[in-house]
């Protein structure tokens, strides 16, 4: 017994015995079980999904017995759902499957993820510094409209990008003044920002464009072509938008800035314990102003992707964000206020959106249900079923200097 334990005492196997690892492995395998039955692997027998799903469930049970109950049950659920989806997929015809699950689904997922990702990272910056930003939706809408306007009047998408960032930052600055200096309730202020953005964009849309689509030929955000990476990869990631790639970079940059640099430490200190931060000489107001304005700029870029990206095609529609700012907020919460987590959540929500688009042809009913998935998942996440989400301690609490 003792030799057995001693042999397992080296760092690598110790990490493998950590219930968290087995739990996440279980969840991963559960997802993999469903994945086996769809292209490009497309197993045509139910054996493989069931086998992998059972392994996932076993890992989950093991995790439960080691004390990580929520994670463990999550893995069990993932295994069971994986088996069910796998069986369902093997029962349906390969033709349909090929049409729904192909490389363009990946491209579409990444495209739909982009605005959510920008929004979620924007929310992380604001909330990590201690300012709740319900106004993400409104700032995103501002980016969507003023981005088109800038690209149209300036003649190039670069101007649109700058205008969108500027207007988003400006609205965020107004919100920051109310939230930080006037110490007004941040939820109320954010709600006001959302109303204002709907009104302002709608008003100027009518005023400047007569409520008609923006003239065609507006300079769009360009796609990045990557030649010579094969048929499947080429269709999946060979033609992604520049902002999509920027979004991937943003995840890494924001992680490094927030968790590996002194300024990130200061930002987090302001969000966890502003008084302590103030005591050691950090200018809490300056940090919070900076973070909220940065948040407005980032989310406005995400909004610009909606109107100026490949899907938007250079046209603005009244209230075109249609809740995407709130999904971004959900992705931020679901990702536990961390860039990598938010990226994962945004990917998941983007995937459910892309799947809904694809399913529209076969079953509009199922597609509609898929659209509500992000909200249901977030509700489950905040209810603490899949691990607890923990907001920064001083999130939403105005700080009064002494």
């Amino acid at each position, binding site marked *: 017994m003792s030799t057995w334990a001693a042999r397992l005492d080296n760092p690598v196997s110790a990490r493998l015995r950590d219930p968290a690892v087995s739990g996440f492995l279980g969840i991963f395998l559960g997802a993999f079980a469903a994945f086996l039955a769809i292209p490009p692997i497309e197993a045509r027998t139910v054996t493989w999904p069931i086998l992998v799903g059972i392994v996932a469930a076993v890992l989950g049970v093991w995790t439960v017995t080691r004390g990580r109950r929520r994670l463990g049950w999550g893995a069990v659920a993932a295994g069971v759902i994986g088996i069910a989806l796998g069986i369902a997929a093997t029962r349906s015809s390969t033709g349909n499957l090929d049409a729904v699950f192909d490389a363009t689904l990946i491209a579409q997922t990444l495209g739909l993820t982009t605005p959510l990702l920008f929004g979620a990272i924007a929310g992380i910056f604001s909330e990590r510094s201690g300012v709740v930003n319900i106004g993400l939706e409104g700032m995103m809408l501002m980016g969507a409209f003023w981005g088109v306007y800038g690209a149209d009047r300036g003649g190039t998408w670069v101007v649109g990008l700058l205008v969108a960032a500027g207007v988003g930052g400006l609205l965020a600055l107004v919100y920051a003044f109310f939230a930080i200096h006037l110490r007004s309730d941040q939820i*109320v202020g954010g709600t006001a920002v959302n*109303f204002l953005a709907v009104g302002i964009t*709608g*008003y100027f849309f009518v005023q400047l464009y*007569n409520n008609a689509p923006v003239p065609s030929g507006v300079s769009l955000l360009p796609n990045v072509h990557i030649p010579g990476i094969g048929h499947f990869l080429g269709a999946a990631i060979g033609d992604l938008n520049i902002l999509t790639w920027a979004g991937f970079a943003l995840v890494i940059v924001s992680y490094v800035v927030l968790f590996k640099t002194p300024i990130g430490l200061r930002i987090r200190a302001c969000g966890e314990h502003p008084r302590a931060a103030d005591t050691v000489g950090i200018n809490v107001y300056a940090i919070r102003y900076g973070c909220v304005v940065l948040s407005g700029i980032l989310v406005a870029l995400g909004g610009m992707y909606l109107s100026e990206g490949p899907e938007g095609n250079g046209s603005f529609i009244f209230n075109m964000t249609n809740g995407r700012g709130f999904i971004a907020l959900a992705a931020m919460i679901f990702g536990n206020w961390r860039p990598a987590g938010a990226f994962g959540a945004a990917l998941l929500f983007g995937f459910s959106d892309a799947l809904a688009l694809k399913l529209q042809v076969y079953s509009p009913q199922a597609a509609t249900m898929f659209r509500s998935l992000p909200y249901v998942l977030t509700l489950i996440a905040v209810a603490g079923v899949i691990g607890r989400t923990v907001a920064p301690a001083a999130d*939403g609490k105005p700080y009064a200097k002494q």
Partner: protein
Amino acid sequence: MSDPGPTPSPEQSAETGTLAARLALKQRAGGIIVPIVTVLFAFVMSFIVLAATQRSFHTALLAFKEIFEGTGLNWIFHPTTNLITSIAAYNLSQTLLETTTLILTGLAVAFAFRCGMFNIGGQGQYLVGLIIANWVGVDFAGLNSFVHILLAISAGTLAAAAWAGIAGVLKATVGAHEVITTIMLNWIAFWFGEWLFGAGGPLQNSTDASNPVSNQVSPGARLPDFWGPQGFQGLHIGIFIALAALVVFWALLNRTTLGYEVRAVGFNPDAAAYGGINVKKNFIRAMAISGAFAGLAGALDMLGGTTNYQFGQLDIPFSQVGFLGIAVALLGRNTAVGTLFGALLFGALLYGTNHGLGSGSVIQPELAGNLTYIIQGLVVLFVGADILILYVWNSRKRLRRKPPAKSTKAAQAPA
């Protein structure tokens, strides 16, 4: 989060002495003046936007005149009860219809505020009320009219109460913030509605499969109109139910043990718990009651026929009354009387801007609706800041022995 709103009632303040009572009186005066200033400020700002973008002071003035006439408030200059001949009377009846809904969605937000919670989910609860009232109103067609109406209203109200109760339960059991959960519940209700009324949905109409709307509520379940001939879309009796709800709101909060507990939790949950009040129970209860008000709004709208007794996929994204309730409640300082006036203002604004400028002779009609959003946003923004004024005022009262240098500086800034 700073404590949003509830000012100590004068009775409470009076007990602590004459100075406190005088302060409470002053505060109550401020409680009336500050919203008025806020509204005036929002109107002036939107006037400036209008004048600047139209490059004409005169056009802006004309537009505001048309908005005023669109609300039907000019009815008081030549009152008549005949809806068919008098445009002003008809406009007024429509303004009052909007007011009916907004009173209730405003109360929904206000009630949760009094318990220290921000119910941003009025929109979702309103949708649940609409959906359930439609379902009951379409089915059960053989019932006695009175029973049918009562059944549809109570089903819509209870369903919305349960819907909001989810947020209450989550807050009470796992501490999930109600703002997050109600936002999520809003969108779940929204997509649920899209699913129900969409192609092949269970509540889609039975005649035209390409039309994503519900069936019409059966005639027996419709609320009778009392102003204007039946079927003319005049003013239905829902306004009396809304006014009754105002009284219920006031009585519930100020004259019952439940209300006392809710307010105590709203002032300070820790102190309330120390005093033996079950805080968790009150979170759930307050949230459910809050949802009931919003659900009642939805049920009355459905049975009262503002959307012609039907409801569909296309209506869902455009309905904003649940969110407007936030502005109404904040402007009304979360009191019954304040909510009434807030609802009147926004009801008038909503109908006035959308229909007063509908002719397009002064400015483009589409501009007008967006003007409502701008005014609404400005009101919420500044009312939100003005909560701070009260907060600072309260803390100054509490700390009046200490030098209040910082607080007075902050208090002057937003005014």
